[in-house]
């Protein structure tokens, strides 16, 4: 069983729950950027947690199935069509051998997920099938899908019984053009002046065209660093620090005018002051924003972040439960 790529779309990559445990080697996790939508997709088609699917960015591909399969589409509102007929999302669907899946223009969000019963079966690299786009490792030959590729799909036992199962409406996220992202302020936030931190948290930022799996850059304010004599080894720019580790989701402001949130395929460390971190639950929401969308960063406590995490976990468990 395979999926034939007739047209690749803008950026379609194989992703799973990520490559965890090699950060100290400089290996970022990669993996589905919106993990909620990705996981719900696996639940719909009856896959194990962590099965690989396709992450479809902005503009959909054209895909043909070589055999009958059960699929689900979750995430961004990127209206799918099977053989030209509209089909539902957040629902397990039956496709037949020879069927062609296409997409209409993106309505909301940025990333849709295609889950297939059996999972995308490319070889694992360091325990994960995710594509690491920055240097080209893992996934399908280390790269985004291209025309003519045949993506292997694993086998599944009882996928037929999944057809028609739906995620309840109340669980389906709606992605508008304005996002509020919760942030835990910290790391080297002492490098920003107090006024600049206030500005960071009050400005409505705009997503620039530099917004991908590596990071999102924003425009809208100008932030200043506390003046200091630069310490040994840091380099002369006030945004520079002695190179340190960057958490996934951390925010840095090189030059003061363009905050960058580092994401799943980002560099794991470097010499720019970081001022806080987008909480894990909201990284998925971030991944559903796109160029020119508006973003506000809101400061929360660790306890609020952990509470949000708990609620997210419970919601996913409820979805899984409801799908039997």
């Amino acid at each position: 069983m395979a999926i034939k790529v007739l047209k690749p779309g803008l950026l379609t990559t194989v992703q799973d729950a990520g490559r965890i445990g090699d950060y100290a080697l400089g290996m970022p996790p990669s993996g589905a950027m919106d993990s909620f939508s990705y996981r719900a997709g696996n639940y719909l088609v009856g896959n194990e947690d962590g099965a690989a699917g396709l992450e479809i960015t902005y503009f959909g591909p054209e895909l043909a199935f070589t055999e009958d399969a059960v699929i689900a589409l979750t995430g961004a509102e990127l209206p799918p069509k099977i053989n030209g007929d509209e089909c539902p999302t957040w629902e397990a669907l039956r496709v037949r051998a020879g069927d062609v899946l296409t997409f209409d223009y993106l309505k909301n969000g940025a990333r849709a997920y295609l889950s297939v019963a059996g999972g995308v079966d490319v070889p694992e690299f360091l325990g994960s099938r995710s594509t690491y786009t920055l240097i080209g490792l893992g996934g399908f030959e280390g790269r985004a899908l291209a025309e003519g590729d045949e993506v292997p799909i694993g086998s599944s036992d009882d996928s037929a019984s999944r057809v028609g199962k739906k995620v309840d409406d109340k669980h389906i996220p709606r992605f508008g053009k304005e996002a509020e992202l919760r942030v835990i302020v910290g790391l080297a936030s002492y490098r920003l002046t107090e006024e600049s931190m206030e500005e960071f948290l009050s400005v409505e930022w705009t997503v620039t065209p530099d917004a991908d799996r590596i990071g999102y850059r924003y425009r809208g304010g100008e932030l200043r660093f506390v003046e200091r004599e630069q310490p040994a080894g840091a380099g002369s720019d006030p945004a520079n620090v002695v190179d340190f580790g960057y958490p996934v989701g951390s925010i840095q402001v090189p030059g003061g005018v363009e905050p960058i949130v580092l994401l799943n395929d980002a560099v794991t460390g470097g010499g720019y002051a970081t001022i806080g971190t987008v909480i894990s639950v909201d990284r998925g929401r971030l991944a559903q924003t796109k160029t020119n969308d508006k973003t506000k960063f809101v400061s929360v406590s660790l306890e609020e972040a952990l509470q949000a995490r708990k609620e997210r976990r419970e919601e996913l468990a409820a979805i899984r439960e409801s799908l039997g």
Partner: protein
Amino acid sequence: MSGTDLASPRYSYGGDEYVFVELAEGMSLSVNFRAMAITNKLKEENIKGITDICPSNASYMVRIDPDIIHPDKLIERLKEIDDEVGSASGFELHTRVVDVPVMMEDPWTHETLMRFRDRHQDPDATDLEYSARINGYDDKDGFIAALMNSPWMVTMIGFVPGLPWCYQLVPPDEQVEVPKYVRPRTFTPKHAFGFGGGFAVVYSVQGAGGYQLYGIAAAPVLDVSQTLKDFKDSIVFPKPGDIFNYRNVGEEEFEEITAKVEDGSFEYRIRDFTFHADKSLADPHTYNDEIKGVLYGD
């Protein structure tokens, strides 16, 4: 202890999944020894819920699953470990000394740095000429000699897989320091030997970069296919705490080495070594002679 260490480390949450600990704002060997001692001890404890332990130059970072261990619980333990480690003055490290051949002023990085002159502080000089001048050397040869004469400690791995940050085992007043490019390059050749802030690096893969470019390493630090013997256990060669001795090789030796890398027979020259932090801090040059004796003596 170095004068730049913080009175007490800064413990901070990196969102809900990371704990970030800054031991000092400024770089020093003593603070890096502390970061290594603390993270080595933490590794030994095999605490449930920790997924990654990342020592870095003057700080360290731990990734956790907060559903298993609460960040505050981890920080509590990290503070205790910090007390136990103290100044790390008696810090001993069972490590390796490695000969790392580089060709300085090679054609590939030269072509690159000329292409991005408009992003550099001094468009009329090469990166080496500029770095030599601002560090008080009469010419680039004296500057190259300083980089090649004393070994380096790998103080952090990252940015991209396998890239080592190296800090030279010399007294603070001899440390080289250079700014990064005014605007980062969009291209750096694979294996480029670069310098930024107080750190030397070998770029493990081709890509963007902002460090000054001086030369190119003959052998890889990342081997995803794991064909070379030194990569049998990991796709990444450098480990925090490795001692690298960069050695300037001519074109002939460079080509010999790259041929061996190609046919899969290349092995780094490596010797086991127990590194004593107090000896290095007290009299680095004498100790460096001992280190080089171990590496090249047999």
